[in-house]
């Protein structure tokens, strides 16, 4: 029996069904008018809703748009009945809801106060939210009817529901990034990047007068971020050196040898390390550097600087201290990724290796670790991005990096610079004010670059070591 005869049979057996309903409906241009109007208004509603979320300049338009959308939905509602001999209850409910809301909105004063939120809110915030919801829903309905109201059209009609929230999220990021670039980019110059910041009095002349040494000093000042940039790099490198072997080792242990209790203890420890507040880690760093103050090795932990006369132990923490504490943050990430990578090795490959008389060590070195390498490298790069962006850990121990960068110097980083310019002392803000956005751009570039590198290297390594 061919498809056509089936369709005629169905149509004959059910005379109330029209030919259109069976799937061979030919679309007339008149049929498209009402859904396309809804589509147009839906799109307008979504765009306007998003825009009026940012500013209340559009206050007058959402109301009109809302009204228009309701009307057009009503038309569609009737049109659907005319063509498909059934009511679209969703469209009806939506237009009813929109009308109700339009009515309520008319009753509201232009500025809404109270609601126990102690704020003055422009009523456009309500209309814009509702406009977004209403617009998305009417887009969905319009797509459904434009596509011919088939089961596939129902699938397509869900796309607006997914795309609008995603678009809003991406739009928010775009706003953020354009803000950052708009404010930070004009100030970035080669000088700012290549020069270190300093602001100190430096002795220039020491004379002996009246039997006492006398010295005159000059105030040296320079604007720049070189040491913050280098410091961020040094922090990433040091943290890698400390956290990578420990994290990868713990991960291998967890996946390969952790039978019984000890494995569970290690796993729990690692998980709870990850759940710890970063400020607690910052406090730990502070107390470690305070504790070290009484010992001869204070300089190693607290960081040193050269003040023109001799080397002085700083009051904060060194890059080494910061890296050790940051390692606590990063080790769980690397350990979990390594464990997962090792566990994802198919059992056949492991058995294949043992069946050839290979030892556990050879199997680990030549089969398990290469297999886990994409995971490990990705986790490492992501951790580097985390180290670059972490402020809370450094907040109590970092300085301004004006005396240089080195393992035992006082720690500083770009992320800390952003914090320091805003919350630091007024003199520092006076010198460096505005450069927090430039530092933000550099940070954004670093994290984006690391993320991209993670993606590319994962793909390459998977191809190389997993044959995918």
């Amino acid at each position, binding site marked *: 029996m061919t498809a056509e005869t089936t369709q005629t049979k169905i149509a004959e057996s059910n005379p109330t069904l029209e030919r259109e309903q069976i799937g061979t409906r030919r679309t007339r241009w008149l049929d498209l008018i009402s859904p396309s109007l809804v589509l147009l208004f839906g799109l307008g509603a979504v765009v306007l809703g998003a825009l009026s979320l940012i500013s209340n300049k559009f206050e007058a338009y959402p109301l009109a748009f809302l009204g228009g959308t309701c009307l057009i939905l009503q038309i569609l509602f009737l049109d659907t009945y005319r063509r498909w001999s059934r009511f679209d209850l969703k469209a009806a409910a939506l237009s009813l809801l929109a009308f109700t809301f339009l009515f309520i909105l008319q009753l509201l004063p232009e500025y809404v106060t109270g609601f126990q939120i102690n704020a003055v809110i422009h009523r456009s915030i309500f209309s814009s939210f509702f406009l977004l919801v209403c617009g998305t829903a009417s887009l969905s309905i319009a797509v459904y009817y434009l596509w011919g109201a088939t089961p596939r059209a129902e699938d397509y009609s869900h796309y607006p529901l997914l795309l609008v929230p995603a678009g809003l999220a991406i739009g928010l990021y775009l706003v953020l990034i354009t803000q950052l670039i708009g404010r930070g980019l004009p100030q970035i110059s080669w000088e700012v990047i290549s020069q270190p910041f300093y602001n100190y009095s430096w002795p220039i002349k020491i004379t002996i007068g009246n039997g006492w040494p006398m010295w005159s000093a000059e105030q040296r000042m320079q604007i720049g971020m070189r040491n913050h940039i280098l410091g961020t790099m040094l922090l990433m490198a040091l943290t890698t050196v400390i956290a990578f072997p420990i994290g990868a080792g713990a991960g291998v242990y967890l996946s390969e040898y952790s039978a019984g209790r000890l494995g569970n203890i290690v796993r729990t420890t690692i998980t709870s390390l990850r759940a710890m507040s970063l400020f607690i880690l910052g406090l730990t760093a502070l107390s470690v550097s305070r504790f070290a103050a009484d010992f001869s090795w204070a300089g190693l932990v607290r960081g040193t600087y050269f003040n023109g006369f001799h080397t002085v132990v700083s009051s904060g923490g060194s890059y080494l201290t910061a890296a050790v504490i940051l390692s606590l943050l990063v080790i769980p990430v690397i350990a979990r990724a390594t464990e997962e990578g090792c566990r994802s090795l198919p059992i056949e490959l492991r058995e294949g*290796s*043992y*069946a*050839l008389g*290979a030892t556990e060590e050879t199997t680990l070195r030549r089969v398990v670790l290469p297999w886990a390498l994409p995971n490990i490298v990705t986790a490492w790069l992501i951790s580097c991005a985390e180290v670059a962006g972490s402020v809370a850990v450094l907040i109590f121990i970092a300085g301004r990096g004006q005396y240089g960068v080195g393992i035992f110097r006082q720690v500083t980083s770009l992320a800390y610079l952003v914090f320091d310019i805003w919350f630091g002392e007024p003199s520092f803000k006076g010198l460096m004010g505005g450069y927090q956005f430039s530092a933000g751009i550099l940070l954004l570039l670093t994290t984006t670059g690391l993320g991209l590198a993670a993606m590319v290297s994962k793909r390459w390594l998977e191809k190389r070591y*997993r*044959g995918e």
Partner: protein
Amino acid sequence: MVSTMLVRDLVAGYNGTDVLKGINLDIHPGKVTALIGPSGCGKTTLLRSMNRMNELTKKSHVHGQIKLNGEDIFAMDPMLLRREVGMVFQKPNPFPMSIRENVLYGVKASKLKVNYDEIVQTSMYKAAIWDELKERLGDNAFGLSLGQQQRVCIARSLAVSPSVILMDEPAASLDPSSAAKVESSIVALKEEYTFVIVTHNMQQARRISDYTVFMFLGEIVEAGETAQVFEAPHRTETRDYIQGKFG
């Protein structure tokens, strides 16, 4: 050297349940022995006991004796035993490295001082894959077809020069022409090696094996020369299984 294996009173299983309930079996040197039987009858467990692979499974147990040329395998170092008793799995499992590295894996793992090029060529030649792949030794073995992968796996286990080769349904996941190539290389090699093959394919067992062992519910029901087991089985279960009445 062609080796003999003797299995005596072997009881083995997992999670406290015995899968094998007292197996006694002689594996004849330089012959192909086929293990047949319905699923879950313990063929694979028996095979994996013979190079102690089932010890890798958690909560497994083995009692009894298996002797390789008179030497108790449970007293041997498992790594040395597995170099002597090689294994080919049901699913081709090449490592994600080049074909050459795959073949040399066992050799390098056991730190044998041999001529690598020569061993690659001879073992791949024996596995009937040399002519196909001699130009592509540097390619990743994952990119090969399943049939080629399986023959690379056979070459890989031949490279460590074992005397016994255990095969767990080596042709089950291959297309007929690749399966035929695997079969013909087994037949060609049986002068040099002792083969034990688990198979679900009666025709294959009949074509390539010299001895056939029929297992059922963890016990050996019947063992003998292939012709006898297939033509004139002593036991009704054997006959029913071979004729396809259950399985």
